[in-house]
């Protein structure tokens, strides 16, 4: 059976171009070529989709997500410094000035230049013994209100270790510890013994500080 040739009149020799006789044809069969193209296109599309999807999804996830976390701070621990600690607990100007200095010892008091503390003015009260002893000792009280006493400071010029100084420091400690009744004796005792030093102690929530230059005893809140 003869192979059908080109239609009559066609000049082609009947062989594919560039394919010498006896050799396989160079071009792949159309079926294989189509399949390869399809695979290539699909893989290419998948890679592009992977990159686009990854970039868009990743960007969206990153930029639209708010981190977790509370909008408020954690609670304060009990010993975190508190505004209430600025003042000697339970101590009033009346207690120190009226009860201790004026009533019991006939001292005289006057207001002095206010001090600025925490951006606010704190009043200062200056008290002396009457008469000849007026320059031997003094007590200053720093306060913002009658029940907001920041500091009570006793100073004595009678000489380090002198009995009047010891008595002054001791009674001052006794007074500021009136609201902490159980600690009064301990505080007064410590003040009497350490008035001639530069030691400090914390008793209850009050800090007692002894000074030598000048010789004094200071009661301030502990923190």
């Amino acid at each position, binding site marked *: 059976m003869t192979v*059908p040739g080109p239609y009559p009149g066609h000049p082609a020799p009947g062989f594919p171009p560039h394919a010498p006789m006896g050799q396989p044809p160079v071009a792949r069969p*159309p*079926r294989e070529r189509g399949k390869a193209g399809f695979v290539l296109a699909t893989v290419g599309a998948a890679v592009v989709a992977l990159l686009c999807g990854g970039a868009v999804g990743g960007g969206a996830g990153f930029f639209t997500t*708010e981190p977790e976390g509370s909008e408020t*701070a954690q609670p304060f621990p009990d010993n975190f410094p508190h505004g209430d600690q600025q003042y000697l607990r339970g101590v009033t100007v009346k207690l120190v000035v009226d009860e201790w200095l004026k009533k019991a010892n006939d001292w005289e008091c006057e207001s002095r230049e206010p001090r600025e503390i925490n951006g606010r003015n704190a009043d200062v009260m200056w008290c002396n013994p009457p008469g000849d002893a007026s320059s031997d000792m003094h007590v200053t009280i720093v306060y913002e209100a009658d029940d907001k006493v920041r500091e009570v400071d006793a100073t004595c010029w009678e000489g380090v270790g002198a009995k009047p100084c010891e008595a002054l420091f001791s009674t001052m400690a006794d007074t500021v510890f009136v609201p902490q009744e159980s600690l009064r004796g301990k505080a007064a005792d410590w003040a009497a013994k350490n008035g001639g030093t530069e030691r400090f102690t914390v008793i209850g929530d009050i*800090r007692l500080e002894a000074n030598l230059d000048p010789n004094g005893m200071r009661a301030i*809140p502990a*923190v």
Partner: protein
Amino acid sequence: MSEPGHPANPPTPPAGWPPPPPGGVPPQPAGFPAQPAGFPPQPAGFPPPPVGFPPGSAPASASGGGKRWLVTVAVAVVVLLAAGITSYVVSSSYARTAVSQSCDIYKCIPRLKAESVVTALKDRGYTCTTDANHETCELQIGAFYFDASLQVSEGLITRINLRVYREASAPLTPGSVAFLKWFGALPYRDDPVLAAEIEAWVDQQVEATKDAKAVIGDYEYSLTNPEPHSVLFEIKGTYS
């Protein structure tokens, strides 16, 4: 034998194959070999299959190519969605658990409103002032002075500067250390384990009275004792 296809030698039909009548469907000629049993008879008028083309190798027809492109598009869409969703989940979980949040050009403590910290400190008795992008709160208790300055960006905190100043002879008290530790734990306030580690670190440095620096997560912690009476503590987000 003459070359096939040569114009001079037109193909000849096989023996017994009569030339088709012009313009008509070839009738089944007599003497045509019988079809194998079971093979459906060819319907009358059905054109013979194209000769010279292997069966099933027809180049993609219009409908076949369309199907293939549909497959390609479907694969692309599936991959696009899968990649998008996966990377969204991954990156959003990364962003959600991030220990810092970008705020302007800085890194800030995530979500924590500077305002809420200032309010908490005011409620605790601190005196606070605002100066440009700084919120400063202070409190003096006896021989101690506490100062906390927050650098604020977009309502969030990017830097905390703390100062505890005390008069001579006053060692750092537990309350003062609590002040430092509370701020130190702010960036990790929702992570009790890490917060506890930071607090332990502060305790160690205070006890050693040494200048110390540490990078914890996205934050730089720096505790210094520039003079005997003051301790400085800085907590800042590392720059992005």
